[in-house]
């Protein structure tokens, strides 16, 4: 254990003294998130454009609309409402087309049901991934409380039914963030570790270490531990920027953590295999680029796999990054744990296979 600790400490010092390596490890994925975040997110306080459709057309529904228009909550952006005809077919594409934040539909029979002391549901169309959804709900809630307290109603009859819409506002950033986490793991563990291994060969570091009591598996384990630490820091930063700065709506789950650990093991092992076979930094960089770059673009990180031509979709199935990205997206974005577990299983199996191969193929001895 003391040998692993000693190797880990020495490696950490060297890693942190290499500003280029650290900058590439964390800086490049962070830059991608910042660029995409800036491109696909609205301003910090987006304006709210709310469409209202009154299917009841009664004094009581008009009273509710007036209440809604007069409701003011603390919001630094503009909050505007627009009326639309009852005949208008309210659906998701209408909202997307007019770049609306949401919509409220007052159902036919609104007044009759309240007058008959029956509850009535207002339909609210919302994009829950948008930062404006809370503002809209708070406004509608406040309007309902005020409306129900009025002398003409005097009772709690009105409730809200939310219809989830996808207006595309944050869609790409949400889609992108789990992918960029997978990409960060691949870049760091495959490309950097491959070059590092070759660097150890060309400098004769393995020759020196071979003469010490340090065992090969201890060296490998120490690198895996270090890259897990680097991944944890990188992913934390990606989260802070993606969620904190640009309001991306993804969550870290236990399955996501398992995928990150297994992915680190998998790509570190592949990187070490490349480095062990190449033995020269330039060759290792060339091979890892030749493997890593197609994987980066054909594994559904930047585009959905469904948009790819069938042949590309088939090719993508041979890339481990596909399963890591899909698993992370399934658990972090879609909440689809079954799909995430299926992908996790593939990543774990590949990780074990490549780890065993790495330990077998890495030779510290000259011929």
């Amino acid at each position: 254990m003391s040998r692993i600790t000693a190797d880990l400490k020495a490696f950490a010092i060297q890693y942190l003294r290499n500003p280029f390596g650290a900058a590439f490890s964390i800086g490049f994925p962070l830059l991608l998130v910042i660029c995409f975040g800036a491109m696909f997110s609205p301003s910090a306080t987006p304006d709210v454009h709310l469409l209202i459709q009154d299917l009841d057309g009664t004094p009581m529904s008009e009273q509710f609309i007036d209440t809604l228009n007069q409701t003011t909550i603390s919001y630094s952006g503009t909050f505007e409402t627009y009326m639309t005809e009852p005949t208008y077919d309210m659906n998701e594409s209408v909202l997307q087309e007019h770049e609306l934040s949401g919509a409220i539909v007052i159902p036919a029979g609104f007044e009759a049901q309240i007058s008959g002391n029956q509850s009535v549901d207002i339909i609210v169309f919302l994009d829950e991934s948008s930062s404006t959804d809370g503002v809209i709900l708070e406004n509608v809630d406040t309007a309902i409380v005020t409306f129900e307290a009025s002398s003409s109603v005097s009772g709690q009859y009105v409730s809200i039914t939310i219809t989830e819409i996808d207006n595309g506002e944050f869609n790409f950033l949400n889609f992108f963030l789990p992918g960029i986490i997978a990409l960060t793991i691949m870049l760091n563990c495959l490309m950097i570790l491959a070059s590092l291994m070759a660097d150890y060969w060309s400098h004769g570091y393995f020759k020196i270490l071979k003469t010490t009591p340090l065992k090969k598996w201890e060296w490998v384990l120490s690198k895996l531990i270090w890259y897990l630490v680097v991944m944890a820091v990188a992913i934390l930063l990606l989260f802070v920027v993606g969620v904190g700065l640009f309001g991306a709506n993804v969550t870290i789950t236990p399955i996501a953590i398992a995928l990150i650990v297994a992915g680190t093991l998998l790509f570190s092992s592949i990187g070490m295999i490349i480095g062990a076979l190449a033995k020269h930094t330039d060759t290792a960089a060339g091979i890892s680029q030749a493997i890593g770059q197609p994987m980066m673009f054909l594994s559904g990180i930047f585009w959905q796999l469904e948009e790819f031509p069938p042949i590309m979709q088939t090719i993508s199935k041979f890339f481990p990054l596909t399963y890591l990205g899909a698993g992370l997206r399934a658990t972090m974005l879609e909440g689809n744990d079954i799909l995430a577990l299926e992908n996790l299983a593939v990543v774990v199996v590949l990780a074990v296979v490549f780890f065993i191969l790495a330990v077998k193929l890495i030779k510290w001895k000259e011929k």
Partner: protein
Amino acid sequence: MSNESIITVTELKKHYGDIKAVDGVSFDVKRGQIFSCLGPNGAGKTTTVEMMEGLRTPTSGKIEIFGVDVTQDYASIRHRVGVLPQDFIPFERLKAPEAIAYFAGLYGKEMTKDDVNKLLETVELVHRKDVIAKKLSGGEKRKLGIALALVGEPDLLFLDEPTTGLDAQARRNLWGLLENLRDEGRTILLTTHYLDEAEKLSDEVFVMHKGKEIARASPQKLIEQYGGKRSMIIHGCDAESIQKLEASGFSMERVQKDVKLFIGEGESVRDIVRRLDSSDILYTDFTTNEPTLEDAFINLVGGTIVSGELSK
């Protein structure tokens, strides 16, 4: 020095296709010895040593260190061995104290700051302790390599050309350090192409050329056996004196304007001077030449070593 063999090498061979890098060498190294592998570049010294260090697999033959067959179980003796490889490059982004602490951790040694400083003082590197290894000079990197080889307080040290890149003073200081280590009972196997180094330090010299053993003995024995006769260079002889010299039956040869007289078995310099005086041979002064390991090497291999290469 005891009679206990620390290293026993038997019929060791390393072939790369048709190239016989090491071709059936055998020797043993006793506890507390400084044993030098001497030879020009390409003689097979480093290949031999790297097989002993467990870095290369022999084609055939046997190597036992501390009674362990290193081709089977080098791991069990690693903690007793310190190594300075020929092409040692330190971990470039570590400072010397950090590299020492790293190796101390690998060898399971507790080292205080004072211990680290003491080791740095031993290799004369304490003034450079705040510099990352990348910025050290070639000689300083070599010194750091020696410090790392010493971290585990090894019973056996393999030093592959330890003084390459060091200036004359640093070389002499390192010789002193190696002698101290031998006095502590440690065994040192070093490879070198510096003939003076091998002569000064070694208890036993193993001369290698083209993968084979050429000779093996103490430096004194090698010199006695292969170094040739002692000689005197007589300066300032005129033509008449040279004629008299030739007529007096001296074993001699002309060296430009001077004359080289060979001192025979059982003869002393004083005997020669008496003979010169009694023959009325005039000269201004003389110098004596004792044969060195270089003379022995020249006679054995047919050339000397200049910058690592054989020069005929």
